[in-house]
């Protein structure tokens, strides 16, 4: 889980790797809360993410709702496994997913 912010603080890239499950989503939520102030472009890089459960989906949903008023949230480099979860839950239509 790495956070990278542009110098002006308006762009934030969050790279997630491994599993996003109920044990580590609180950490992600906490860090997002700390870092999201003033961010207008939020990008999740999921190239290293193999697994997501409903706990992680909840974070994507609430974050997307938060960003809807202030800027843009994009999801990039989604692997096949995670994409399967996004598709079956309808999240593929809710989230702005850039396909590789």
């Amino acid at each position: 889980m790495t956070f990278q912010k542009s110098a002006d603080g308006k762009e934030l890239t969050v790279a997630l790797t491994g599993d996003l499950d109920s044990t580590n989503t609180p950490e992600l939520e906490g860090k997002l809360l700390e870092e999201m102030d003033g961010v207008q472009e939020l990008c999740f890089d999921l190239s290293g993410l193999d697994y997501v459960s409903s706990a992680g989906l909840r974070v994507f949903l609430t974050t997307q709702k938060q960003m809807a008023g202030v800027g843009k949230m994009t999801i990039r480099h989604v692997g096949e496994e995670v994409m399967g979860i996004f598709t079956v839950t309808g999240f593929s239509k809710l989230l702005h997913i850039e396909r590789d």
Partner: protein
Amino acid sequence: MKELRVEASVKKLPIVFRFVLEELENCGCSKKTMRAIKLSVEEVFVNIAQYAYDPQTGPAIISMEVVRDPDPVRVIISFADTGKPFDPLVVERPDTSLPLEQREAGGLGVFLVRTHMDWVHYDYQDGMNILTIEKNLQEVAR
């Protein structure tokens, strides 16, 4: 059949994963099937951890069996708790066609279990909630 008795707490999830996945790995289960089972196990266990004993905590008893006869080989995993009687399967399915503003996060866990398992069953017996999930393991030879 093997059994794990563990505190129903989210921080115990790694122990639960190990208990289930070790057995599946040993019997030659595919990565895809393992991931589907792992997901369902997380959703069911976390549900118990968050709601069954709220605001206290209590035990969860997880039993697992790979059944080879009759065909196909399948895995049966049961989760028992002595918390508040609650059938998670009555929770309304999320409407996956709703737009962002109307989508709620609730109900996703059970929905994922239903979509990834072949059979899901709830029972209340002897003061215990028992949720059983089952998946065919076509790839595993008898």
